């Protein structure tokens, strides 16, 4: 069996290493598949559904599906782009996201995706949920109003024994990501920073570090999310 597989994305012939996740395989071919709950180096968990593509006629998440020979992938097609946009809107109306007052503005992936998808007013009614801010831990603030429940922190941040510091609580609409009362107190400076970096939105903020990078010099201040992949020089395999 060859190490490489051939497949198409929106008709473009692509090539990638067998078993690679679609999102990475697309990236190597200079094609950006929008993601939100996915994080490099962390086991994917297909939660946000934004990377949904149509593989051989079936909706699949690009972050969890390994690429296979002959796959016919639809990515940048009207109904799927519309689906992604509606998911971004859903995440906005589900929580309380006030970008101008948020420490993460400009570094926020949700905000950047909203710009990329030209979201104006969400089609869904705002839910205005009553959520709390957990500032009880010495190094971090867990801002539940902004949490999009992507599980990145849950999956990426563990203590030295592999124990979870962040976890889901409850289910359905009342699900939330909470911080372990004991381990949250022992969080090192390094892990706290990592947690903030892993969070795609402003739900995990290291105390007194929120505005270290000035507005205007932040990740998505000058170029839209995904443009780094689209402008990448492709090295042929």
């Amino acid at each position, binding site marked *: 069996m060859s190490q490489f597989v051939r497949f198409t994305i929106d008709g473009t012939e692509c090539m990638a290493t067998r078993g690679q996740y679609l999102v990475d395989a697309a990236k190597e071919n200079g094609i950006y598949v929008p993601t939100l709950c996915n994080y490099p180096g962390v086991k994917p968990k297909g939660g946000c559904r934004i990377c949904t593509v149509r593989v051989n006629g079936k909706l699949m998440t690009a972050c969890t599906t390994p690429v296979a020979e002959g796959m016919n992938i639809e990515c940048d097609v009207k109904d799927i782009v519309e689906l992604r946009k509606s998911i971004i809107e859903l995440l906005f109306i589900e929580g309380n996201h006030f970008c101008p007052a948020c420490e993460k503005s400009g570094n926020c992936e949700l905000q950047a995706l909203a710009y990329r998808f030209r979201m104006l007013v969400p089609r869904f009614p705002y839910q205005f949920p009553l959520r709390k801010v957990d500032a009880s831990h010495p190094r971090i603030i867990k801002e539940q109003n902004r949490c999009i429940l992507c599980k990145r922190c849950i999956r990426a941040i563990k203590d030295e024994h592999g124990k979870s510091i962040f976890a*889901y609580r409850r289910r359905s609409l009342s699900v939330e990501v909470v911080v372990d009362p004991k381990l949250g107190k022992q969080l090192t400076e390094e892990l706290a920073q990592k947690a903030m970096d892993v969070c795609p939105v402003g739900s995990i903020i290291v105390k007194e570090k929120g505005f270290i990078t000035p507005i205007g010099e932040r990740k998505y201040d000058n170029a839209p999310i995904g443009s780094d992949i689209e402008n990448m020089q492709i090295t042929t395999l």
Partner: protein
Amino acid sequence: MKTAVRKILDKYSKDKTRLMDILIDVQSEFGFIPRDITVEIADDLGMSEVDVDQTISFYHFFSQKPRGRYQIFLNNSAVANMMGQAEVALTFMKELGIKINEVTPDGLVGLFETSCIGMNDQEPAAIINNHIFTKLTPFRAKEIVRDIKEGKSMDDMVVADYGDGENRSDLIKSVVTNNIRKLGPILDRNYKVGQAIEKITKMTPEQVIDEVKKSNIRGRGGAGFPTGLKWEFCRNAAGEKKYIFCNADEGEPGTFKDRVILTERPRLLFEGMVVAGYAVGATEGILYIRHEYKYLQQYLESILAKARETNYLGKNIQGKKGFNFEIRIQFGAGAYVCGEESALIESAEGKRGEPRDRPPFPVEKGYMDMPTVVNNVETLCSVVKVILNGGDWYKSFGTTESTGTKLLSISGDCKFPGVYEVAWGFSINDILDMVGTGKDEVQAIQVGGPSGAIIAANEFNRILGYEDLATGGSLIIVGKNREILNDLVLNFTEFFIEESCGSCSTCRIVPTLLKDKLVKILNARGVKQDIDDMVDWGRILKASRCGLGQTAANPILSSIKNFRHLYEEKIQKNKIFDSGFDLSAAVKESCKATGRIPNI
């Protein structure tokens, strides 16, 4: 307190994959799971508190606050409501002086609601301290409250005669009735234990798989994947250990046939698991049963013990060297989504019942990351008959596409609710005749539970089968006087909201938005745009990870498709927009407090 917890932890060898069992035992010992015990469990299992907490807080039957010495769970399924649940609930509330989700101040009784408990043919029903109470009336509710206050034991609270068949046996002693209305080749009473096992000891595993493939039997849980193929994939998958799961989590509102099999034909089911184990090369079977059926535990354990004694389980089964198979029972703790096979596996590993991403499929990487077959109760029972009588015999029932028979759970507005075994290809019209319901009395039929479809009389000539109306077997008959949108569609949509695991953005958020639209229409504030929005927004759910999310809009979408006039009757014809927001109601309280008159 400490010693009791220690004992429970030791019972499961401090194995964190047995967290469900540990928590079930703690919940039953203390009536709830106190925080200090959560911390103790976490420390002993080498987990963080939030990791234990995320499992506890996921399941409906676990509680972190005291829920009373008597915990009453009233079923709030659509059929329970149709049969008068509201009156019963009101009586309980009045007699106890509490509302739903409250506990009496003396800590004696807690009153809660729960999703369908698999008793749709004998509603209204309730679970009190793991005992089932059926056919409740306001009178009966008063009696129960009186008995509780008098401190009667659970056994003494049962005033009716025990149900039929094994429900009367010493190890069950329940008022639940089987209501088997039609026997067929699977439920057939001439079953003799062990014949299939004896037969396969003379066959190779490949021959067993071939026979099952020949029968063309497809999974009976609803998805309809060919069973023989599933077994073959698992047999061919690499893994040092393989597992057979029986999915007895039947949570689809309106289905209860697995409960009847578990009561009347458990030996047949276990034999099916052994056959599957032999075919696949698995050495361990796990029967995952919903918590609602806890009352069957002792009975099922006794049957497993007997099977071990007679060497239908254990080592070198029936003298066949190397044919080893064991079965253990795993209870759930109240979560519909655990009926999804990968969520069920997660749950059996002690975690939240969140579906996994596929691929990989369980046959490659399932329980403990090992190749795993998950089969429905009915599928495993059917396989025993396939082995005994041959695949060709099995194919003589049903249609070309859908071979064999299907157990139907029929409830709602009909004379004879219960379990019927019919060959695939049976039409809805035949079903109505069979259950004693005139066509002029029926408004609609909900086929396949909330995740299925609601159909009207013009489709009653359709047949049950994978080629037409595929179903896991739940059929709810809806009489002429029912308000479909309120009694069924709203109830089902609330069910999906309650039962979402919450991990996909789509399934977590969209059903609530749909429900709000539906309520707006029911409140006569809807406009045509609301119907269009529901159709558009419902489609978003197709991008969800599992079947629950993908079908969560089905009650709304299928009723808009087949009963659109019910929506159109309720919307405002002269308006194109209505915010649905009632300003005068919203400011009523503050106006009262300040003595102002709303300026609207």
